[in-house]
């Protein structure tokens, strides 16, 4: 009789051990590749510097800036209120609560948007919701917000509203009053007005 119990005990332990052998810890509670691809193609992850600037000026509590550049670059300059999570330790547990906040838009910032994009892919794969990438990164931020270009007179009215908004924002972010501003209106580079409407596909050179 006790021989039967040894067999049953052994069966139970083998079934439990089988659980340990299940190979798939890499994909456990990760967003599967097909869904990640849909997210990548949706391009809805980009948020324009103007939108971020206006929300920061209104002290919108539902926006949270994360600077994925290295600590040393972060120390030279970063946007006010940005938390520095260098890309290497993006997935450390220490930063997990900041990235998976519910109801808050987390905006990833880097010089351009390559590092931010890479961070975004890994965050989306781990299943964090509402993670955004600052379109064009700090380069775009400085080109648009800190040095707003005077639109040509033929531009439509919104271009002028945008321009005045950007001048205000530039003052707000310490870009100095407009008279001091370097108005390097390089003739050959046409003023690229960042359309605030989210463009469907981020193609083109």
């Amino acid at each position, binding site marked *: 009789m006790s021989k039967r*119990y040894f067999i049953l*005990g052994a069966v*139970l*332990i083998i*079934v*439990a*051990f089988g*659980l*340990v052998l*299940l190979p*798939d*810890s890499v994909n456990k509670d990760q967003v599967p590749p097909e869904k990640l691809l849909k997210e990548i193609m949706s391009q809805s992850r980009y948020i324009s510097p103007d939108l971020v600037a206006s929300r920061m000026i209104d002290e919108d509590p539902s926006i949270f800036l994360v600077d994925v550049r290295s600590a040393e670059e972060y120390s030279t300059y970063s946007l006010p209120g940005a938390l520095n999570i260098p890309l290497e330790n993006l997935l450390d*547990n220490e930063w997990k609560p900041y990235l998976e906040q519910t109801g808050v838009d987390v905006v990833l910032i880097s010089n351009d948007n390559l590092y931010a994009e890479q961070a975004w892919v890994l965050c989306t794969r781990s299943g964090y919701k509402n993670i955004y990438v600052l379109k064009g990164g700090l380069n775009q931020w400085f080109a648009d917000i800190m040095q707003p270009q005077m639109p040509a007179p033929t531009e439509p009215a919104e271009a002028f509203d945008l321009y005045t908004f950007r001048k205000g924002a530039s003052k707000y972010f310490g870009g100095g009053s407009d008279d001091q501003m370097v108005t390097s209106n390089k003739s050959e580079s046409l003023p690229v007005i960042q359309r605030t409407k989210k463009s469907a596909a981020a193609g083109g050179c």
Partner: protein
Amino acid sequence: MGPLIPLHIIPETWNHVIAVLLGMAFGFIMESSGFSSSRKIVGLFYGYDFTVLRVFFTATVVTAIGLYYFSYMGWIDMSFVYIHPTYLTAAIVGGLIMGLGFVSGGYCPGTSLIGAAIGRIDGIVFTTGLMIGIFLFSEAFPVLEGIYEGTGMFDGDFLGYITITEYFNISPHLFIFGFTVVAVAAFYFTNLIRKRVKPVNY
């Protein structure tokens, strides 16, 4: 397919019918395993009858293994399964009081119902006492609200609906395997203990 009702695979209206059916199966198996006799239950603490330990551990192990296999196979989505919340002090203090009630009363809320169902008067008395206890708690709630809600002095007690494997950051599969080995070892040793303890006839 996940938990059928939360994912609306089975309409919500069936919830109570299923509750009765599962309750019947639960009651039937528990009574047949001997959970209606308080002296058989308390045998666990005095070493003469380890039925409670065997049934309890086997059920926990079988369910845990089943759940995590189902989760791996995609049959159940664990994020929809209700995980008992963790209030540290409440769990400990409540557990200690319940342990005292267990060894003095001889029953627990489930088994007292089962005992009452087959005519045990002490089961009925225990259930009445249970209701009195709940009434006392509810009246004294303003005093005990701190422990219950994990606020005030007990702030930070509420660790959320987390599992032990998330808290200690170990793989659940490994934990279940360890738990199974401990359970089987416990079955073996309790068998030895029972042989040495003076048998009690009930």
